[in-house]
């Protein structure tokens, strides 16, 4: 079956997609001699995806946002047939992932796991030729396609060098070329700009936009970078603890907190109870959230306050932090971002480093 736009088939559709993993218990060297104390089987299981429902339309650039461990990569691995779901129905390009596995695989290109997922001892050209064979491409067609992609991604000059001599950004470009080799209608991109310098990130983002806008590809993108999702995605879904908590356009999601005022303070070495303390001082604030940072990495902690009157909050917060002898790095009153929406919806932070 080849996708037909007229048929109205979703590029990706998940209905009640559920995936559970058994928890690994480390009981020490002689742990196997001990009896399993647990009487409740549910305690031994982690629900990675809990009835996930997604409908992604052809040509859509769709963002899946959530903190680490929220289920983003598990979703992508289920869609790409690397994992078998425990419950639910999933179709990719109209094909059932469990019954029409080969067609699903042929419909997808993926960038998951970044630069490590290539053969570093081989050249870019060798890597691409190898993966072209796995996608059943004709040798002559594959050669032509590889040249095209190397040219488009500005890798032609170094195509015959081993990947171990490439920069991270160049290897990521090869990973993207691999995903595009067989010209799939759907792309799964898991953190495609993670760890790249601003120049390479911009190039990759432009490439993603072009793939969606000019080539009409459906893109499912997961990212930690809120600006990236905001700029690129037609719609985004927030996922937390394996559940989809909201799906909409970035603008509509931001509208949920648009009318609210936002105060963000960077602080150094805040005590653990600071969030509770500030909340007690600002009863009209909807959200008070401490986002821990890593001061050794030059990334101080942040306190976000959404709702209420920012002007009044600023004074109260400065007084409170001074009373507690907490050093303030900066204080901003601004417009809420997608991250703020996520915090409001889940009470959890979206990213590890809070960026």
């Amino acid at each position, binding site marked *: 079956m080849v996708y037909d736009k007229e048929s109205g088939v979703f590029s990706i559709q998940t209905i009640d997609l559920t995936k559970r993993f058994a928890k690994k218990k480390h009981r020490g060297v002689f742990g196997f001699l001990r009896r399993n104390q647990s009487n409740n089987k549910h305690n031994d299981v982690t629900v990675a995806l809990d009835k996930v429902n997604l409908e992604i339309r052809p040509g859509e650039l769709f963002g899946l946002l959530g903190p680490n461990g929220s289920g983003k990569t598990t979703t992508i691995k289920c869609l790409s047939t690397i994992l*078998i779901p425990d419950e639910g129905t999933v179709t990719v390009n109209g094909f059932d992932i469990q019954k029409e596995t*080969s067609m699903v695989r042929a419909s*997808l290109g993926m960038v998951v796991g970044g630069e490590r997922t290539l053969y570093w001892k081989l050249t870019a050209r060798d890597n691409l030729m190898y993966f072209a*064979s796995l996608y059943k491409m004709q040798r002559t067609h594959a050669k032509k396609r590889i040249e095209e992609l190397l040219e488009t991604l500005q890798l032609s000059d170094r195509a015959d060098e081993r990947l171990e001599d490439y920069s991270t950004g160049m290897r990521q470009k090869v990973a993207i070329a691999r995903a595009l080799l067989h010209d799939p209608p759907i792309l799964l991109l898991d953190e495609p700009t993670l760890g790249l310098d601003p120049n390479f990130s911009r190039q990759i983002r432009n490439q993603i936009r072009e793939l969606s806008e000019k080539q009409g590809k459906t893109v499912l993108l997961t990212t930690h970078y809120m600006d990236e999702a905001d700029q690129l995605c037609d719609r985004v879904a927030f996922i937390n603890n394996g559940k989809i908590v909201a799906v909409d356009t970035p603008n509509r999601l931001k509208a949920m907190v648009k009318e609210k005022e936002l105060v963000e303070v960077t602080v150094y070495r805040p005590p653990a109870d600071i969030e509770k303390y500030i909340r007690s001082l600002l009863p009209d604030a909807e959200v008070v959230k401490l986002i821990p940072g890593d001061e050794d990495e030059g990334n101080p902690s942040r306190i976000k306050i959404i709702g209420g009157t920012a002007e009044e909050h600023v004074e109260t917060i400065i007084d409170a932090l001074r009373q507690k002898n907490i050093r303030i790095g900066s204080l901003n009153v601004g417009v809420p971002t997608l991250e703020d929406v996520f915090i409001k919806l889940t009470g959890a932070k979206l990213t590890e480093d809070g960026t």
Partner: protein
Amino acid sequence: MLKSTYQQSLLRSNLFVVWNELVKNIKSLLAYPAILVFWAVFPIFWFIPFILQGQAFVGGPESASFAQITGSGEYVPFIVIGAVLNSYVNTLLYGMGENIRREAYQGTLDYVLAAPCNKAYVLIGKALSESLSSTIFAASQLTISVLLFGMNLTLGVMLPVFFIVILLMLGLYGMSLILAAFSLMYKQSYDLSQTIGYVFYIFAPVRYPVESLPTWAQIFGKLIPLTYALIIVRSFMLLGTDFSAVYFEVIALLIIDIVLLVAGFYLFSWMEEKTKKSGTISHH
């Protein structure tokens, strides 16, 4: 698009997978020249002590008591053949499981599994690359042995020997698939492949004739493909016989090959499915 993906015939696309897997593995191997030198030369140093020990015991390159058991008194070529064929066990058994584990560690296994090609052909490509490197190493060891110990080799003997080596490799592919399946599930197969290697070393007639083993050990040894390969190859090379003298051993080797290959492919598919369900397929 999907159309171009399926443009070529099934046979051609499957051969293309096998070929590219072979090329990939050989190029990766060539990236480490020290490993090539090691396997081409160093295994000889592992069996030279046994030859020197034999010479010290019997006072020369031939032994009358050895001739009574094996039909040929020359124990030096007997040991060389044992060592060279045993090197296939080491490289093939260890190679496949380690190859799968390395793919999981690198993160490339996910991409191989998520591709639409039949994975059996990827495994065949891996097995062929291991066979090719094993054969190059074996040929190098044999050549050095000829120069060192003056063994006689003729093309007329080497062709049937090569046929038997292919049969041996088929059985070892089956075993290596079983080990690769364990590697998917338990994330390491090195210890198991080492143990199997030692079991072969003891129960197959690598260093000594099978008659030197107690009866129960001889029966156990008959389950090992290496046992038959050694008996047949020695019969060709040392006694100058042809297939008519060893047809029972050839048929036995073929049956063991089929059983091991079927079991290997079945177990690998089963473990792949199981680890996809448990979510541990990409772990390493």
